[in-house]
């Protein structure tokens, strides 16, 4: 495997994986480089000082081993952090926490940073809270990519109708 041991651990036994019921914020991002997709859910609570913190976090990812490992790692880093702190988590921090990634896989980690940012954006927006300028700018950039991703995975997103059906070898398998 071209990956280091930490990546392997997160990839094989990812943390905080799965869907969240009734999240306070959701970040849905896609990467048009190779077509990976990550959805990240947060629950927001308050700490003893009354600051808003990420009290729970979950994710779902369609992508390579690096994408899965960075999804897992970013949620480890963000859990329990204040929203301000969480917004400081860069893809570089995520990569460092995994002991590095091959250069061709760095783009996968950008997804993790973006998904976290988007989930926080979603939460702030829904609750009419002030959105930092940097976050607003990043959101606008991401939205453009997402359109393309949604187009690409149209069928998967509408899968309800077909799910569960087994496919046979003939015809037109």
């Amino acid at each position, binding site marked *: *495997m071209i990956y280091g041991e930490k990546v392997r651990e997160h*990839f*094989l036994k*990812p943390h905080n*994986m*799965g*869907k969240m019921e009734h999240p306070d914020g959701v970040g*849905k991002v896609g990467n048009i*480089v*190779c*077509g*990976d*997709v*990550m*959805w990240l859910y947060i629950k927001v609570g308050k700490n003893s000082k009354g600051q808003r913190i990420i009290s729970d976090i979950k994710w*779902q*990812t*369609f*992508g*390579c*081993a690096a*994408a*899965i490992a960075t999804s897992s790692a970013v949620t480890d880093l963000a859990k329990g952090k204040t929203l301000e702190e969480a917004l400081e988590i860069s893809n570089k921090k995520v990569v460092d926490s995994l002991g590095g990634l091959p250069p*061709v896989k760095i*783009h*996968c980690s950008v997804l993790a940073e973006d998904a976290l940012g988007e989930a926080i954006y979603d939460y702030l927006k829904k609750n009419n809270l002030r959105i930092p300028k940097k976050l607003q700018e990043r959101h606008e950039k991401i939205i453009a990519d997402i359109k393309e991703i949604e187009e*690409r*995975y149209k*069928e*998967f*997103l509408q*899968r309800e109708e*077909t*799910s*569960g*059906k*087994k*496919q*046979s*070898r*003939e015809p*037109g*398998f």
Partner: protein
Amino acid sequence: MKVYLDNAATTPVRKEVVEAMQPFFSEKFGNASSLHSFGVEARNELEKAREKTASILKVKPSEIIFTSGATEADNFSLKGTALVARKEGKKHLITTAIEHHAVLHSMQWLETQGFDVTYLPVDEFGLVDVEQVSEAIRKDTFLVSVMAANNEIGTIEPFEEIAKICSERNVLFHTDAVQAIGKIPMDLKDIDLLSLSAHKIYGPKGSGVLVVKENVQIEPLIHGGGHEFGKRSGTENVASAVGLAKALELAEKERESEAKRQTALRDKLIDGVLQIPNTRLNGHPTKRLFNNANFSFSFIEGESLILRLNEKGIAASTGSACSSPNLKPSHVLLALGLKPSEAHGSLRLSLGRNNTEEEIDYVLEVLPLVVESLRKISPFAGQ
């Protein structure tokens, strides 16, 4: 349990081949061009290997050019004939969208040198339309190159029919037979140029052949001491040639029995894997190499799949964008009309002579669980 199901990538060198090659490293090490007994000994063995290879392929020994592998053979056949054609004012080549990169990238390079290339599409099963080949031939066409069988999806092309058309129309026909040799019977009657590789048939890596029929004019790409009838210079690699000839001999000898055995295993594998919901088979249902199975699993990505299978000891490959150095999905799967998302979740399992039924049972036990574990992570199929 370790299960190697990537035999289309490479195969282990078989014992008999290693034994046949063994003397040519330290003992019979002579340069086949030398006049003394060491040289003569090497020369004799080299020519025996050439004769054996030729007799299996039913061509003349002088039509066998040993190369460093099929990539060189493909490059040589296309560029070497192009250099001749240019002198005659011909500049058009025809190939398919699903060729190996050794052919496709050679074609693309030829385009930069002023040649025209037609890339024919394939149908949803990966088959080239013979009619379309015929229609694509122009006055200035000098060569058609269509692989005998595809390396990713295992589809067997109608190469003999295409070869016949080319010979009638006086156009050279080249076929990359790397995956087909030793797996299907091949009649080289109308084939002018054929590339093959030893390491796909339990021979050594770095060893291949380009069959160049007598009637074909070709310019060498590698100049030097005039080896291989002046077509490909470089001190002959006797061990490599002997290994190739032995591997080919054994592959042909066992072809029918292995075809029977591996077809049964492959079909068991295909039937079992298609039980997994939202799974499709890529390639042709019947015109398919006996050792190839290629699937797409919706909602998951191939590199993750390969690496999780690897943890369970299963070695396979994928056409996913994430696993390719340029982050593009497999050109073969896209040519079948698969969407990038479907190519994303592709898995190639290629069998070989060492695979057993027990191993297939193991794969059928493990694979559904691995697919399920990744679908649990996927936003498209999660919980």
